[in-house]
């Protein structure tokens, strides 16, 4: 089996610009590749099943040309873009697809995906929204149903031992990524927002052990850097869903600010929470995805105190602000996104109460009109910088 060259940021560049290329190579070498959408893709289970998990992304620079004939334009633009990519054959090496129940845009289009792509394996993982005890027990049952269907597809039993190993491998991977994030805390950060975005995208397209080795190679390279003199005072955090393109980071950093932190679903949202080691690995996995991930599609079953609920949902953002020295935040929310969209007023005021400036932007999953985005972001940076 050919090995992936681990050349730090050069590898990040390559994997970012040729997303999915490694999965394609592994497929050619006989491995099964399962694509999944969103932070809720249960990668530990896919890894334990011996398949290559591939988080799906779209192509922001490309117009949706085929997908719109099959999927409504009020569906999440990210989902539509990925679907369009899949229909155009960009993921023609996939053996299967797992769509977790993240939101209406995924739930209501699952049939469109499974009928449109006609893959040998297709599974809708019915993740609940509520985090209470009955929901956790339900989710554990749902994960077992998923495991059984995956076993049937691969012809291989997914043992508790394999699950435990996968949990350890993914926890270690997250730990290494968090160590890389630590290198953004210095002033100036040792790794730019543009570079980090490429690393995040590259990492999510690799099997876990390769991903970890890749991250370690990036770490080695970045550690050797000496901090340059810093003429920029603005340190920004980006908050949103799957922002997997460097366009926004480039605009921010060309406008004279540093992008030093994120709360996005290919970034800290997935790399901060680990799976607890539990006697039944499914319990730890279920807890991580249902209770530890800070995503707007999960909620408490009962809320008596608004203040406590805000702390539970957004408290991590204030911690990031302090730990990473953030002084401005961009909420970059995709159009037609109810889960993120309904959070905007509360999240914005919560963040502003910590003294940071917050800029809310609603846009498409597209880089087809960068000038408009650039003007607005530059104006915000100029205003905050004054």
């Amino acid at each position, binding site marked *: 089996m050919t090995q992936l060259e681990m050349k730090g940021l050069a590898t990040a560049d390559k994997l970012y610009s040729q997303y999915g290329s490694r999965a394609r190579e592994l497929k050619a070498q006989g491995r099964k590749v399962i694509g999944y959408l969103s932070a809720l893709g249960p990668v530990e289970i896919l890894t334990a099943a011996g398949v290559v998990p591939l988080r799906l992304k779209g192509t922001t620079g490309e117009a949706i040309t085929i997908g719109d004939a099959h999927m409504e334009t009020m569906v999440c633009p990210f989902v539509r873009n990925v679907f369009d990519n899949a229909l155009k054959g960009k993921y023609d090496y996939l053996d299967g697809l797992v769509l977790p129940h993240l939101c209406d845009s995924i739930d209501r289009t699952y049939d469109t995906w499974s009928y449109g792509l006609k893959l040998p394996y297709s599974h809708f993982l*019915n993740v609940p929204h509520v985090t209470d005890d009955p929901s956790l027990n339900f989710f554990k049952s749902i994960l077992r149903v998923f495991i059984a269907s995956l076993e049937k597809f691969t012809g291989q039993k997914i043992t508790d031992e394999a699950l435990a190993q996968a949990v350890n491998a993914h926890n270690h991977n997250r730990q290494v990524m968090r160590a890389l994030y630590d290198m953004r805390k210095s002033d100036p950060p040792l790794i730019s927002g543009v570079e980090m975005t490429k690393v995040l995208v590259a990492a999510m397209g690799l099997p876990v052990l390769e991903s970890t080795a890749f991250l370690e190679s990036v770490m080695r390279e970045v550690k050797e850097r000496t901090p340059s003199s810093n003429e920029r005072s603005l340190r920004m955090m980006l908050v949103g869903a799957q922002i997997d393109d460097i366009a926004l980071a480039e605009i921010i950093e060309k406008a004279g600010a540093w992008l030093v932190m994120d709360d996005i679903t290919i970034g800290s949202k997935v790399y901060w929470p680990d799976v607890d080691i539990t006697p039944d690995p499914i319990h730890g996995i279920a807890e991580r995805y249902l209770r530890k991930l800070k995503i707007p599609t999960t909620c408490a079953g009962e809320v008596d105190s608004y203040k406590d609920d805000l702390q539970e949902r957004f408290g991590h953002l204030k911690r990031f602000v302090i730990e990473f020295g953030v002084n401005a935040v961009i909420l970059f929310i995709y159009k037609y996104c109810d889960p993120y969209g309904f959070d905007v007023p509360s999240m914005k005021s919560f963040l502003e109460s910590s003294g940071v400036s917050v800029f809310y932007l609603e846009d498409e999953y597209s880089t087809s009109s960068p000038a408009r985005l650039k003007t607005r972001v530059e104006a915000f940076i100029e205003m905050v910088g004054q």
Partner: protein
Amino acid sequence: MTEAKKPRSLATEAAARISKLVRANLSATVKAREEGKKVAYTFINNGQDEIIRAMDIVPAWGESFAGVCAAKRDAEKYLQKAEAENFSRSLCTYATCSIGFDISREELGEIPPDAPWGGMGRPDMIIGSAQQLCDPRFKWPQATQHYLRDVPIYVGSMYYPPWDPNMDQRDVEKIYVKYAAEELRALVRFCEKHTGRKMDWDRLAATVDLTDKTWNLFIDTYELRKAIPTPMDTGDAMNTMVPITFNLGTQETYDYYLTLNAELKQKIVEKKGVAEVEKYRLIWPAGLPSWFALGDFQYFNDKGAVFPVEVTYRNAERLDRLDLPKTSDPLEHVAWRWVRFWTHWYDAARKRPGSLPKVERIIEYIEDYRCDGVVFHSTYSCRSWHAGIVHQAEVLKKVYREIPILIMEGDIVDISTYNEADTHHRIDAFIETLEAAKRRNS
């Protein structure tokens, strides 16, 4: 030459009585405090109706109030209020209209005097729902609490097995029923905590029985619309859905459908139809209507096109068709009823390769109600009921037969996207397609 515009005429007397019921529902939320009752913001088709009714909690339906604002063409002020708070126009406009109203009421310290039909009373609690139906049902409560910070929230769950042609839903449905029943029990505890009253379980059981009877009667009544000419169409059903949707678990609702049933039977005897001459029978298989443009149904009727059947708001089925397992636990019964309802067309879909449960339901209705065409309505601010419509239309043509299909576009509340002339031109073109299809098939 322009045609004279006819006002919307309701075919049934029962439909004409609905505005009184909707006003009474809104008014109950305003008077509740004086009557010592608690008000809960809540959402339709969540399986929570019987608990709310048995606990004497007054439900306040944001979906209904937003629909009223839209129908009165008076929603814009609330949509703008929400927009000014950074709620995007692309979000569910039921929610943003309702939240805009909440903000206005909080700012004034009382219900805005110009609120359509007297507005909604301030809630004592919000009962949301997490399920496969609609994200706003758990996001809307969270967003509302930003403005009503002292109001507690409960979000229950009511899921059903997803459609998988390779899996028998019965293999996993018990997982779903157990979960839904546990969540309903948690709702009872929440209601007890916030009303200070204990649940009367006998009353709950009686309320659940009443819902069962109502579901049966509702379906029996709606099936009378199979008659040619049809005695009632979807234009009316967008009114007659109110009792089963917003007043489920009440004797008043059961009695309403008894009256409607009698009225439809009488119309059938008298051969009174919806259109002067019924030329085309259509199905409305998915999509919430534009509440500000219900007159479009009349436009169809004026062209001789009637809708004897719709899927929208027909969220019930005869219980004998659902084959519910017996249980002495009323909450478990509610869970079985909804889980079996949402999965009712799975078996039919499995029998027809390439089909979907939603498409099987449409096919069943096309056959039973002898429909000539299909009219979907796609709403830009609602993914819940509208994402997947294009695919349903595609599959319907593929697995069933070539049948004229129109997909209209608009919104439920936001009138800014609506153009009456364009809409009518599209309907005109569709009528021509129906006529051509009819000629081909004759």
